[in-house]
């Protein structure tokens, strides 16, 4: 925040201006907003504590009797607070957010191509889903089995991700990030498959 306070002109105001106490426009970056290092591994408890503390400071209810401009900033800031909390509390969303910031956005395309090692599984699942529609009870067992396997895969990926998160935090190695992106894409594909089995 290099600009001056909008209200009194004091230089380099924080969340609130040190001189006139006016609320400043919020930073857009979630990590900056929460005052946390841009890391993939994060202490959930600490984040939650910060969320409650900031809610008490920033919520529009507290600014109901303030100027129009401060009310607007309060609304903006609380939206960033809530959006940021939603993203940062979830390891997967958090990783995707960091990827995006690093210019490695997960595009929609990534999830449409079947990962080669899953080709057979996907083929079998689609068959079973089709058969289910015609009331084949055996297909149901097959689908439930598939779901269990997919959930196992997800768990495995989560374990790998955890290690990669720590690796990225340690050295900010671009290759690690690419690897994370690959895993996230795969994970997204698998969670979509799980969703399909749930409709059965």
């Amino acid at each position, binding site marked *: 925040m290099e600009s001056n306070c909008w209200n009194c002109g004091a230089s380099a105001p924080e969340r609130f201006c040190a001189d006139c106490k006016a609320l400043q426009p919020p930073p857009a970056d979630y990590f900056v907003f929460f005052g946390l290092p841009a890391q993939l591994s994060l202490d959930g408890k600490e984040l939650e504590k910060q969320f*409650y503390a900031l*809610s*008490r400071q920033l*919520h*529009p*209810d*507290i600014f*109901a*009797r303030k100027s129009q401009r401060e009310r607007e900033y309060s*609304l903006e800031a*609380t*939206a*960033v607070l*809530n*959006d940021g*909390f*939603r993203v940062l509390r979830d390891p997967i969303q958090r990783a995707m957010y960091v990827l995006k910031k690093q210019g490695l956005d997960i595009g929609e395309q990534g999830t449409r191509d079947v990962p080669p090692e899953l080709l057979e599984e996907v083929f079998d699942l689609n068959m079973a889903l089709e058969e289910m529609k015609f009331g084949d009870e055996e297909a149901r067992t097959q689908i439930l089995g598939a779901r269990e396997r997919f959930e196992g895969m997800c768990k495995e990926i989560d374990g790998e991700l955890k290690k990669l998160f720590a690796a990225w935090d340690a050295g900010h190695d671009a290759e690690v990030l690419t690897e994370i992106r690959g895993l996230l894409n795969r994970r997204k594909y698998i969670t979509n498959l799980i969703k399909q089995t749930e409709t059965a």
Partner: protein
Amino acid sequence: MSQMFQIEFDNVPEERIVGIDLGTTNSLVAHMTLGSPRVLEGHDGKIVPSVVSLGDNGGFIIGNAARQELIDHPERSIYSVKRLMGRGVDDVQEELKLFPFRIAEGSESVIQVMLGDRKMTPPEISALILRQLKLNAEEALGGPVTRAVITVPAYFNDAQRQATRDAGRIAGLEVLRLVNEPTAAALAYGLDKRKEGIVAVYDMGGGTFDISILKLHDGIFEVLATNGDTHLGGDDIDNLLIRIALEDVQSEWGEDISHVGEAVQTLRQAVIRAKEELSFVPVTSIEFAWHGKSYKRELTRELFENLIRGIVDRTLGPCRDCMKDAGVTPEQIDEVVLVGGSTRIPLVRSAVEVLFRAKPHTELNPDEVVALGAAVQAGILAGTVENQLLLDVTPLSLGIETYGGVVTKIIHRNSTIPASASETFTTAVDGQSNVLIHVLQGERELVKDNRSLARFDLKGIAPMPAGFARIEVRFLIDANGILNVMARDARTGNEQSVEVKPSYGLTDEQVEAMIEASIDHAEEDLNARQAAEARVDADTILIALERAKKNAAYGELSEEERQAISAAVIQLQAVYNSTDHLLIREKVEALNQATMSLAEAQMNTAVRSALKGTHIDAER
């Protein structure tokens, strides 16, 4: 005296923010007084039935008085108008089968209801109820009330919320916040005292059902998830009983009275009475008389429960979904709060107890608890209630239409509000100057299965080859649960103009026009009140004069003086019923002048008597 009050009120204008429960069946207004919320009373009690009737003289009758009108003049009376708020004609086809709403022709985007031969929108009708509550509050608090917190069902969508806010504006109220009814109830219970815990609020009112699950954290009321049905409530039970009674009547009398408004309304009140009694006694009867014929049917609680079980069961699905979304099991729920008149029904209570495995809280009057909570929220906004904060969620996902009639969700349901999402849009054709964004609310995949909120037209895009424009649109759901949309050209940073075309509801211009119209009415209302106040002053002086005539001093007046007083009295009586308060005041003042010497004489008599040591009654 009045001078003293004046000073007192001038000191506390901030605090005069009221909390309003604008209910389907009943409405209430409450205020935070000396640290605790209380329901404010009008002339005929705390509860203002949400009934509006158009009177003979073109004025409106609201509340208790309108309930009788509902029977006498059903064609120009309306109840349960909340069911129509923010809805389109297509949405309410089911209601039209059950409720005697007369929808006017040409009600495509905003429903218009006929009250007699007058066309009115649901927000205008709700505004009349709000204005009555506003008047009650002004009388109780002794000064103008212009700001309010109004509650809405948690499951209300954007259009329904906007309609409620519009109603407030039309009634001359600045709506500082819309609060979800179950959340307000949690505030009223002051459950924060337990510091930490999970609370479920089960709210079944006249027309809507809500379930909310909250996490309490040292004064913060954080809603984890909410669910509900905006078409489920006590009205449904009434309609079920009416249908049965109408069938009975048809077979007993050989007469179909289902289209006779007066008869159905009389019957409605009879079944409501029976329904309410069954919460306290095991057996009662529905009794109904019409044009010399009578109908009576015994109704046991057992039979009643069998009849309504289906309706009660419809609340359980949303409860289970809500727990799932909140990520809690019934065992983790520490407390359950019951809200809404329908939760007095024993079957509802036992169903809740079984589902959540906890004995529900019923200490507060379920009819009042929402208004009390709204008053607490008003106190939070006024700064008189500290260390309490509500963090609510949006009940429905927000999405935009993409290729092939599919909805892409951009803000998911149960997200804490305020919440936002940004999307970048571009053009598909060279030189395209407009981009139309269709925004929807709901959980389904296809556009046609969701609720259309509005179309936002990004206008005046500079001519560019297809795909070059970059318009960044920010969708922000505010603390009221209402969507705000801002757009800017990402290349220039300039603000991009957006024209909002709401799918249902009033445009800003329409609301402005209604506010204008209501200000005219407000003048009539104000005149009526000022005249009433002038009459009170007239009464005071006339009564004092009658009493003074018995005083010895009156006998000491000259004949002339006595004649002057009599003339002034006659003149005052002549204008007594006038609607012109200035005229009444003028005659009061004239009488005041004419009795001046009498007052002096009386004083002298009093002094003389006092000197003699004789006791006389001092005139007050």
